[in-house]
């Protein structure tokens, strides 16, 4: 049995979904060009406006990509497809892995396209900067990929669209994807406790070359663990009931 074929078709399905592209790629790209374009010579949060906004819009789009991939489980559940799959030899692990691979593949497209857009607006980084930024973004997306699988089991097919849009917008806004959360008030503290904040900060750490502070790793790890525990619990409840 080869699960590669299964994963390949899952990828194909993902890339054929137009709404997915709009949410994960078209919106962030257009917003980047519209906002970073006129401000390309400005500074934001201590780094160049274009780098900040490029990472911000990548965070928003890539979050949408990985959340939506898992959340599509809701649509499959609504047509009972999960039951059909459970009477095939497909290992549960492969099913979820295919969802993660698809989400990350879409996120990779968003990352590459926005890098190119950033370069076209004058973003210049050393190779090590590009690499460390990419690595941190990919790591920072892990909790959101798990979040997608979680809400894919919690919500219905009808509510999943607004939930993806709303959740990504909220995480992006509070994480500073559209501009840093100012001041040192409660909101700023909350912001630093969100994995989306550290996604956005991947840009800054690429410029300074410092990488993430320990707090970032802790935040991403805690969110990942908590969401994974919840997702596993919801999945188990789901399979036990039917």
């Amino acid at each position, binding site marked *: 049995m080869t*699960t590669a074929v299964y994963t390949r*078709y899952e990828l194909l399905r*993902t890339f054929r979904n137009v709404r997915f592209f709009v949410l994960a790629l078209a919106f962030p790209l257009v917003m980047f060009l519209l906002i970073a374009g006129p401000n390309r010579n400005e500074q934001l949060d201590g780094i160049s406006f274009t780098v900040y906004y490029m990472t911000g819009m990548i965070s928003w789009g890539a979050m949408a990509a990985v959340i939506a991939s898992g959340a599509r489980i809701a649509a499959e559940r609504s047509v*009972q497809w999960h039951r*059909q799959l459970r009477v095939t*030899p497909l290992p549960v692990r492969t099913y979820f892995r295919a969802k993660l691979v698809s989400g990350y593949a879409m996120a990779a497209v968003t990352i590459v396209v926005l890098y190119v857009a950033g370069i076209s607006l004058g973003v210049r980084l050393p190779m090590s900067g590009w690499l460390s930024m990419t690595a941190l973004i990919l790591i920072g997306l892990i909790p959101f990929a798990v979040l997608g699988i979680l809400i894919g089991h919690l919500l219905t097919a009808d509510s999943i669209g607004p939930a993806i849009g709303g959740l990504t917008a909220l995480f992006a806004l509070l994480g500073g994807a559209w501009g840093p959360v100012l001041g040192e008030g409660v909101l700023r503290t909350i912001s630093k406790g969100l994995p989306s904040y550290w996604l956005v900060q991947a840009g800054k750490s690429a410029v300074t070359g410092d990488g993430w502070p320990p707090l970032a790793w802790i935040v991403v790890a805690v969110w990942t663990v908590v969401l994974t525990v919840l997702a596993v619990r919801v999945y188990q409840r789901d399979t036990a009931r039917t």
Partner: protein
Amino acid sequence: MITVTSSPPSTGVEVVDVAKSYGAVQAVRGVDLSIAPGETVALLGPNGAGKSTTIDMMLGLTRPDRGHVELFGKSPSDAVRAGAVGVMLQSGALIRDLTVRELITMIGSLYPHALDVDEVLDLTGLHDMAGRRTQRLSGGQAQRARFAVALVSNPELLVLDEPTVGLDVEARQSFWSVMRAFAARGKTVMFATHYLEEADAYADRIVLMSGGRVVAAGPPTEIKARVGRHIIRATVTGVDVDILARLPGVVLADRHGDTVELQCTDSDAAVRTLLTTYPGARDIEIRGAGLEEAFLELTANSDQLAELEASR
């Protein structure tokens, strides 16, 4: 064609005393079922009889409250993992954004002995639609694609839960001919239906379920004799129903005004006698009794039995 059956492997499907309740509702109240390898068995019963719950437990989709299931000597999940089971569930649709061919290829790739995709497309009459996206199929086409998904696995055991719901007459016929061809390869088939005619025509054995129990099991001829009743409706004036109930072949008689309704085990004999004895009988109508009516009686009997056993 004559098929020589060498002594088949001893165990196929073994369902032993499985029961399942959902809250206060006892969906299945202790079902035993055994299917020999190569046998085609129909699970016949009205809606709510417990057929789907029994099938779900058989496949490991639902955990029984008690009892156990073995498929070819393995647990359901082991048999499923080994690719020995192909299933067409009762409800459900297909995932979108793939063509029919891609979907069948995707599922086939999970099985060790999958059928050739073109062969499956031919068998299910989907060749002309192979390039169509699943979300653009009509209801009947989608039903055929679901059958193709079950078939491509080339399983030892094919389970079909009310497979012909939503199919027109022609599609039904071609469906059953494919099913029969598949069974002729020595495969074990179990299908659920609430049509007696389907069970009669396509099964080696019928298991009759009602109220969460098996109320009868045997070859189609035997089951048909028990539930395949006919009802004669006729306008007959001035005759007492008790007398009509004693006509040959009649088991029950009922009167609504001038119209009488006779439940028959042998409607041919009944109608002959009716006409010779009461030439005034007119507006005669004969129809097959609904299964539900037959089941009601069988279930009533089995309930009385259960009460008797309980009171003992």
